[in-house]
Structures are given as structure tokens and as C-alpha cells.
């Protein structure tokens, strides 16, 4: 398949050139914590970003937010990257009951989940915990909560 060969080539090129510049913009007040972050950043491609993602994926949002603030202040991640991560945290913290009323009237909508967040729904799926809702209901709610971002500002890839 041609497309996969193309993609593999592109990935190779990008991987080769992905050592990020780690010119420090941190000032003298930067903590050792920041220095460690910078060392991380030098060691691998955007590993601070990866670490923040790992925290978000585990639901450790408060820790993730602290790290985002530090990394942004130290110039280790850009403002748009920080905004994207904060937006993702906000999204994962959104409760099922915050979906628009018309969506909540959808057939088979699990209104018993209304006080649960997207993160909790994802955990139920992860642990195959179908005691509150069926697998299909959990998946439906997950997609509905994940996709408003498409409709809200950017429409996904459509500009």
C-alpha cells in the first residue's frame, strides 16, 4: 500500500529531525524542578509534554495543571500546546449531564450517568465495568463528550 510507505518515510524524516531546541528561557528564579524538566526535554522529544499527557491519562489533573504551568513558564511547551492540554483536562472533567439537552434525549441515553465525568466513563470502559451502563451506552457517551470540540470552534479539520 503506497500510502503506508509514504507515511513511513515521512515518519522517518520527522523522527530524525525531532530534537527540539531547548534554549532555556527560564530566568534565575527557576527551580530545580524546572531544570529537571529541561533535562528531560533535552533527553527526548517533548518528554515534558509526554509526561503531562501521562498524568492526564491517569486522571491526575491537578498535578498535570501544575506541570503545564511550570513548563509553559519555562518555555518548555508553547502556549497553544498548554492551552490544548488544559482544554483536554476540561473536557475529561465534563460531566455527562452537561451535554446539551437535545443530545440527552437520544434513544438509550444513560441519564443515570449524568453526574459522572468523561474520565470516569473512560475508566469504566477501561475496567470493563458495566454495572452502571452497558458498554454501548458508555461508548456513545464517550464519543458525544469527546466530539463537541469538533463542532464548537474548529469543526475538526474543516476551517
Amino acid at each position, binding site marked *: 500500500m503506497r500510502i503506508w510507505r509514504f*507515511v*513511513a518515510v*515521512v*515518519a522517518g524524516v*520527522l*523522527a530524525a529531525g*525531532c530534537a527540539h531546541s531547548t534554549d532555556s528561557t527560564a530566568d534565575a528564579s527557576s527551580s530545580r524542578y524546572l531544570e529537571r524538566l529541561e533535562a528531560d526535554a533535552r533527553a527526548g*522529544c*517533548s518528554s515534558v*509534554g*509526554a509526561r503531562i*499527557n*501521562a498524568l*492526564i*491519562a491517569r486522571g491526575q489533573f491537578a498535578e498535570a495543571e501544575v506541570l503545564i504551568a511550570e513548563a509553559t513558564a519555562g518555555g518548555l*511547551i508553547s502556549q497553544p*500546546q498548554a492551552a*490544548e*492540554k488544559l482544554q*483536554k483536562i476540561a473536557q475529561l472533567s465534563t460531566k455527562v449531564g452537561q451535554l446539551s439537552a437535545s443530545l440527552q434525549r437520544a434513544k438509550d441515553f444513560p441519564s443515570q450517568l449524568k453526574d459522572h465525568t468523561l474520565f470516569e466513563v*473512560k475508566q469504566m*470502559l*477501561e*475496567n470493563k465495568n458495566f454495572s452502571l451502563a452497558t458498554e454501548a451506552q458508555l*461508548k456513545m457517551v464517550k464519543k458525544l463528550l*469527546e466530539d463537541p*470540540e469538533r463542532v464548537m470552534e474548529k469543526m*475538526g*479539520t474543516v*476551517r
Partner: protein
Amino acid sequence: MAHPGLEDLVERFREARREAEADPGNPGQLELHRRLAEDCPAFTQNLLFLAWRLLRFEGPERPLEDRLAEVQRLLEMAVLGSYRSAPAVVELGFFLDTYRDAPHEAARLYEEAGARALETVRESWRGLIRYWNDERTKETLEKALKLGELAEKLFPDHTPLMLEVLTTRRYAALDGLLSP
């Protein structure tokens, strides 16, 4: 006159394509594309197709500069009407590069088209990996792991996609496909 229906336009485009395959050099099918372009200048796929076919097949009786001017106009219309879609932008780039000796402007267009197209790749991969995660079988998780590695190289800074990749790894670990 009422605007022709969308399905009708696409059918006419298909017909012109079919004729082009059967008889590539026939000027008749250029006419089909041209009439279609007049009826609906916003149908950009037809404009792109017409532009390149015109260059290749129109006879030498028409001066080259005339033909090039028409090709450029068609490509610019395609860029405008598609709101700068990647395929239209990249085609205009190649035209300017080759026929207008404008490699720098072309390079900017290649960059723009590449960035646009990559966004589409990124979103497609996120959807695909999410689908494979949702299916959560050995086969689909293996596919997701593989694409996830590539995604990590290509889009390390795109949080939503990276989180989907983490979900794959979490599932794979829980389901015994990866050591946790």
C-alpha cells in the same frame, strides 16, 4: 436558469472521466469538463482535472501562453472555491513551480498544502485508533499499537491523539498484550 443539481454535476464529471479513460486524446471530453466548469465553477475537482488535461491534450493550434493562462486561472479558481484545500493548493504549487518559474512561491504552497493534509491525517488516525481501542480485540489493539508508534513520531505534540495512544497502551497492558 436553475443551478444544476449536485448529483447531476458529479454524474457529468464521472462521464467525462470515463470518456477520458476510453479515449484520452479526444477533445470532446475537454468540452464536457469545460461546460461543467462554466455551470459550476465551485466544483473544484473538475477544475483541477480540466486544468491538467487541457495542458496535456489541447492541440498545438492554440498558443501555449493562452493555454497556460487558462490553466493558471482554473487552478486559482480551485484554490479559491475550495477555500484553499490541500489538493488544490498543491496543484497550483506545481504549476507555478514548473510553468511560471516561481519555486519560492510554490514552496510556500507545498508547505501550506502539507500542513493542511497532515491535519486530516492526524484527525483520521485519532478516529481510527479510537475505533480500534473501542473494539479492543487482540487484532485491533495490535494495529492501534503500530499506528500509535507512528503517530507519536509524527504528532508528538497533539494531545488528543497522544491520549488516545495512551489508552491503547493501557488496554494492551490490561489485556496482556504488553507488559505493564
